[in-house]
């Protein structure tokens, strides 16, 4: 985790099977301003603590802006909506 102590609320949009773990379509996680994508994953793991199927899904999921899927080690974009994308199955 990051050592910067200033926290920032990050709103994550939920899709697919993540919809079954609650009524909300977004989830707020507090993260340091300079958090990376990996930090968001840790924050969500804390949120879903105790829910094994949510944790397994989280592990198989990716994060994305509206433009592209994010790399685990990228800095989390501050000014764009972030979505969590479980494994996909269009068609």
């Amino acid at each position, binding site marked *: 985790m990051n050592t910067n102590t200033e926290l920032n609320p990050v709103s994550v*949009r939920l899709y697919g099977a993540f919809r079954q773990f609650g009524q909300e379509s977004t989830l707020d996680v507090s993260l340091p301003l300079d958090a990376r994508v990996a930090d968001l994953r840790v924050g969500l793991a804390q949120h879903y603590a105790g829910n094994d199927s949510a944790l397994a899904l989280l592990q198989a999921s990716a994060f994305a802006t509206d433009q592209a*899927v994010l790399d685990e080690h990228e800095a989390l974009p501050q000014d764009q909506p972030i979505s969590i994308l479980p494994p*996909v*199955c*269009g068609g």
Partner: protein
Amino acid sequence: MTTLHVQVSDAPLDPTAALEHCSAPGHGAAALFIGRVRDLNQGRQVRAVSYDLHAVLCRNVFKEICAEARGQWGESLHLWLTHRHGRLAVGEASVIAAASSPHRDESFKACRYLVEEMKHRAPIWKQEHYIDGDSDWVKGHALCSHG
């Protein structure tokens, strides 16, 4: 006229529009694929399927896939890729992909490419509703960044 059409919609998909889009005086071939909701999946009887998708990212991924197809099989290709969302009954079309080109090989290959890549890369999810009243989110392909 734009020769590329990508869309996500909760309205029924229109194969006739896809075939009109995928045509040109110099194009001797068009290939089209329709994916429809099936009444049986992995041994369970399905009544309907609800599709969830990330609309903006979906369109971006569709455009990216189409650009790759043109890079591979010709910039003159006309391409169509649309996916439906919401609840669909058995038999309803969930996806239509189509391509036209001067000769048939490019149309067949590009059409198939759109379908395969869409399935693996587009942010789309489906929840099956079974006749026994149960529902389940279908397992899919994990996404990775291209970066």
